[in-house]
């Protein structure tokens, strides 16, 4: 499986400053974010736009993952004590 966002190397998802992304680079970034090859017609789109889309996908995936982590703690705080053990066994992987 492709890695959508490398938290240890976030710069891997961002083109070097001052350089326009090439079409292949942008399409590769989008394919990585989607974990699938995007439609071939995207090769005709400005690579800056394709790269922006790829970065937006990885950023949204990252936001979701972080929100899911926070939700575990919040759920255990909200659930009444009698149900907490059952819920903890389900949501703590």
């Amino acid at each position: 499986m492709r890695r959508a966002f490398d938290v240890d190397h976030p710069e891997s998802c961002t083109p070097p400053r001052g350089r326009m992304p090439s079409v292949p680079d942008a399409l590769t970034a989008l394919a990585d974010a989607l974990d699938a090859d995007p439609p071939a017609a995207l090769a005709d789109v400005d690579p800056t736009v394709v790269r922006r889309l790829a970065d937006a996908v990885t950023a949204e995936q990252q936001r979701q993952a972080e929100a899911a982590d926070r939700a575990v703690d919040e759920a255990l705080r909200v659930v009444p004590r009698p149900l907490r053990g059952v819920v903890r066994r389900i949501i703590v992987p």
Partner: protein
Amino acid sequence: VIAPEELEVRRIARLVRLDPAELDGLADVPLEDLRALREQLLAALFDANADAWQRAVAVAGVVPAGMAAKLSQAALGPVLSARVTALTPTRKAVEIAAKLDPAYMADVAVEVDPRRITDIVVALPPATIAAVGRVLADRGEWLVMADFVAALTPEALRTTIAALDDEAVRQIEPLLEDEDRIAEVRALLDER
């Protein structure tokens, strides 16, 4: 009438929290490719962290609907709730929806793909759908509303249209893509 390619770009932009203007030129891509791209984006966003969403569904299965609704609002928030809703059994989802206020349901509606929750939308009381529709109209979420129209039963459509003013319906109509639904909406407008 707005070109279907332009509507797809707006949907794609909303999914990844970009302004459509930031996707300049994307509307030149053939419609079927844009639709395929949106499906890929939906899969990348809805199916990423699928284990976490499934665990949330399991929690909803062991707590009362009122508690599940509280967890949806307090712990998950609208984005994660949208992901989880798509995996929740219809009956449970409808029970939880009955405990949520329309404003929060509207928050979730903006984040969900209606095609993934059609069974739930069909099972919701028309009055609930109309109440959420009013909130979305107040917020000017015309494309979200238009996308939900396809999932509504005729009764829910009638109830929702009745709850909206003419201006709101006129904002939604150009965004509808299904000719049959456009005809239904026009007929309901003419009945006023």
